[in-house]
């Protein structure tokens, strides 16, 4: 074929330009470290990269959220541990105070310490985190949740809110517990019922707070019960039990409530409708105890009850002492309930911390996976690119040399 001078100059030049372009391409890939420098390099890959980058960024954010949640929960856990330590001390004092050999002065000293502990407990319940948010105020993080009213009762001013944080796409973790669930809504008495002495009792009977021994029959007919002491047909002190719904329970109808009342034996237990309790001391006919369903009471009020009991002057009158001791017994049971409740909250906090740790490591490995997928799609294989660069350099040099050689040939040179 006929070839024009212009043509082979042009073609040689085109070859060089072509090789240069290819070389520049490899060079850009090596310099940027990326195979994918613009969407047109790999349109599908480019969208994948966008998606992966978003996933990376959200995962990073989830890790940040996890850190927040962890900090708050760790603080909550530490605070609740302190609350429990304090409660344990209060319990010790209650046990000590239940000892009838103590003098009023001794009891008063104990009352002082419990008062201090109570302040400490309120302080702990009002703990703030590093961001000055109250830990146990629900959503009302800027409102001090626990305050003492002028009448001495403890008031909760937070709400029921329990904030959650997003720690993975489908998972939220609660980062705090509302104070009312932790400290306020505790069942008084033994959790099912409480037994209170009639203030007009004249005997020195001490009743224990009892327990539910048969939940089915206890809950069959919810009602209040009254345990009354009477002089029975034997001329002894006997007791009867009357339910607000069932009517007379002990002695069982149709026995006479008074005449057939069973004899009272100190230290014996009595059982009715699934309830079991027991007495000590010497009751007087006409004394009574009320068994009522438990209601909610705050931990502070239970501890306050202990202070009140310990501060009661018992002097020489045994009656007052039994009132104080009954109250201490009641408060002791309630402190145990509070302790138990906080243990439950701590368990839940611990489980959440565990969940966070698990999620954090899941997120971490997810990120690594994302990173490697991203790298596969976007990044250049440097070794491969280096080899490619070398081969294109050679090709460019070859194109340049052949151009120079061919251009040197000219018939005119030989004329």
């Amino acid at each position, binding site marked *: 074929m006929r070839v024009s001078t212009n043509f082979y100059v042009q073609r040689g030049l085109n070859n060089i330009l072509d090789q240069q372009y290819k070389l520049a391409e490899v060079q850009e890939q090596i310099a940027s470290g990326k195979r994918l420098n613009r969407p047109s390099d790999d349109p599908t890959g480019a969208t994948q990269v*966008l998606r992966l980058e978003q996933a990376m960024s959200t995962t990073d954010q989830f890790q*940040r959220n996890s850190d927040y949640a962890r900090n708050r929960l760790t603080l909550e856990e530490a605070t609740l541990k302190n609350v429990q330590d304090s409660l344990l001390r209060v319990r010790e004092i209650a046990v000590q105070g239940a000892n009838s050999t103590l003098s009023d002065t001794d009891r008063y000293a104990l009352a002082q310490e419990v008062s201090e502990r109570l302040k400490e407990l309120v302080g702990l319940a009002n703990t703030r985190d590093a961001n000055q948010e109250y830990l146990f105020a629900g959503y*009302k*993080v800027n409102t001090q949740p626990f305050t003492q009213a002028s009448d001495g009762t403890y008031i*909760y001013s937070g709400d029921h*809110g329990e904030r959650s944080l997003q720690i993975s796409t489908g998972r939220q973790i609660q980062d705090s517990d509302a104070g*009312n669930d932790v400290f306020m809504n505790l069942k008084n008495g033994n959790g099912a019922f409480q037994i209170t002495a009639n203030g007009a009792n004249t005997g020195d009977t001490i009743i224990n707070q009892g327990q539910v021994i048969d939940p089915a029959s206890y809950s069959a007919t919810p009602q209040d019960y009254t345990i009354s002491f009477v002089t029975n047909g034997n001329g002894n002190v006997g007791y009867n039990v009357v339910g607000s719904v069932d009517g007379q329970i002990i002695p069982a109808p149709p026995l006479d409530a008074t005449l057939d009342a069973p004899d009272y034996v100190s230290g014996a237990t009595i059982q009715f409708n699934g309830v079991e309790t027991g007495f000590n001391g010497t009751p007087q006919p006409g004394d009574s105890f009320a068994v009522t369903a438990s209601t909610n009471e705050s931990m502070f*009020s239970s501890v306050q009850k202990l202070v009140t009991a310990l501060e009661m002057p018992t002097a020489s009158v045994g009656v007052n002492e039994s009132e104080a001791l009954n109250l201490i017994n009641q408060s002791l049971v309630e402190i145990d309930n509070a302790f138990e409740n906080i243990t439950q909250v701590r368990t839940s906090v611990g489980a959440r911390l565990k969940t966070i740790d698990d999620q954090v490591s899941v997120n971490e490995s997810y990120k690594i996976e994302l990173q490697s997928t991203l790298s596969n799609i976007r990044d250049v294989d440097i070794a491969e690119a280096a080899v490619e660069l070398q081969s294109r350099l050679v090709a460019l040099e070859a194109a340049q040399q052949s151009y120079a050689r061919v251009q040197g040939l000219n018939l005119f040179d030989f004329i």
Partner: protein
Amino acid sequence: MSSILNSAISGLLASQRSLSTVSHNISNVNTEGYSRQRVELASNNPQRIGPGYVGRGVTVDDITRIADDFVISQLRVSTTSTSEADAFLQLASRLDNMLADADTGLSPSLQNFFAAVQDVNDLPSSVTARQVMISEAQSLVERFQFLDQRLTSLGDEVRNMLNEDVATINNLANAIANINSRIVEATGLAGGAPPNDLLDQRDQMILELSELVSVNTIPQNDGSVNVFIGKGQPLVIGNQPSKIGVSETYDGHYEVTITDKYFSSVISDSITSGSLGAALSFQSEMLEPARNALGRMAIGLAETFNDQHRLGMSLDGDVDTPFFKVGTPTIYGLNGAPTVASAAITDVSSLTDSDYQLVYNGGNTYTLTRLTDNKTTTIDTGGSWPYTSADIDGFNLTLSTAGSVGDQYIVRPTMAGSTGMSVLISDPRKLAVAAPLKASAATDATGTSTNLGNALISEPTTTRTDGVAMLGVPLAADIDLTFTAPAAAVQNDSALSGIHSTSVATGGGEEYTIVVDGITAFSYTAGGAGDDVTAAEIDAGLLANAGALNAAGIIYSGSAVGGDLQFSRVDGASFDIDVTNTMTGTAGGFAGADLATGTNTVNNGSVAVAGSFSYTSPAPGGTLAYDPATENAGKSFTIALNANESVTFTISGFPQDGDAFSISNNNGAAGDNRNGLLLGALQNMQTLINGTASYQDAYGQIVAEVGARTRQTEISSQALEVLKQQAFEARESVSGVNLDEEAANMLRFQQSYSAAAQMITVADNLFNSLIDAVR
């Protein structure tokens, strides 16, 4: 002798011509579009002498231009397509690079914004975190607008490119018309011999023209050429050029017009190739779809974020506040058609990235055409103006009056989505991160729950009809829900209220019995007249039968003396109480109603068995049935606050009779992030493009489309370049100058010139010999 001389002279002249042509070829070796020329020689007519003919030398028959019209037109065609691909690629790469760059793309801003939302969720009471979220939102909006502006300025470039191309086309058209007339003239002067170099110049001009637009030529007999562009639009006829122009259309497009002596017409549709065609198609195929898609994403993001934000509550208790300002659709009227239509976005997920054409058909109908696929929708107003159409692709049209038949509008629903977007909230306290309502158990003055059961209520969520102002929240009054225990939860009881002693025995032997669930609880037979049954006798009788009743699982409480006896079964089952009275007077009443003489049955099954929560506010109040026995795992309730709003919550567990919950305004809840969590969740929700794409996906789609189109153009541009190269080679092969060839020719003609000169010497010698002979 003279014939020798003449013949030698003709040889000299022919060699001279040939040499000067070689010289011309050599000189033009680098002239673009130059076709090599060749001197065609022919021997002169011979002279007849006695025995035959003797030659009379050589003559220059013709100087031909070595060119092949087929090869030239091939080159033009491939030049047109290559330059189209190159021009398109050049524009598309701009878009491609713009989206690729992390600093100019939308992705980082989007991610930063949602990260800031999450940070607010971590610490809702922090004004700093809130401020950061607002700043990030502003950056996001700016990024949308920056991209939109870059697209707009690419549009300006398209216009500049069109203007430049059109100016070049006009120059070339004038030059071709001019050279046409010179060729006609020169051909005439030379008696039909073609002016080779002028032809080359004209071919070169036409080749240059073919870079801009596709060209067709029809040679005329007089040597001129008629040039047509696009699909047969005449650009040059003989020595008459037409004029091409660029104009902006009513909806912001650019289009190309052609003006000849008589007419001006729009030829954009037929300009599909060359760099001019590339600019036009880039405008309609990439730039505008990208801009619409970006706008659609902006509108979608702003609208969906707003919908959720409105449901939340700010630190100051504001509800129903939008976060973003949302861009609105744009409508252009053709040729000043009066504005009779307005468009509004109704459903962001159904929006397309297309533009629409609206045409008034006369009468009550308009036709709306989706321009990407020409799908038409007829809107019949039914004669009522203004008329709001049903939703079409996520927007509706409100037509205020009939126009004139043929009035045209272009509706661009999403084009202004980016420019119309802005952040409406500047005060960090106004971010609606909290939920407006909260639910809690009833409490006493100390904040301690008074509920005895273990039932729980979930935090309430509010919902509203889209686009309607929120009026129900904050609540005018708390919603207090009080539980009435189901019969089964406590007991089935039937009140025998007011057992009277008004039963009168008239003779004796009359009977009064109370039979509970088949067990005789009381039975009395009158001993004689006046032996009436008294309440005390009923009490004593019941006590006597208590054992039998207990054994059957029936217990009773209260006393007839007290006027209120209650029977119940411990297992909660229903039962009947039959009271038979044959005495005169009433037997006593159930639930307040006295029973007549005779057997009276109260079927306890008629007592409601399921429990319920009752509430009085919002009016008119109501009851929500809840049976703890079967629904303790959680039951969802919805209470309507008004026609458009409702509140939904779940109750679970075992409430006791009288337990109460309260749904109230969430005041002072600085730590609440419930709405914030929902706002954050929007990032990964597929809210756009018919529910198939998240925000990121929608952007990814734009990137993918631009990338794929650029890639495709890049590949075809490379392929076309090869074709063009081949066409160029073919032309060069035919018409290009080869210096070696010319060198050889030069030597050849030099030699023939020398030989001819030698012949003159020979002739001279011959002549001298002759002269010498006769001297």
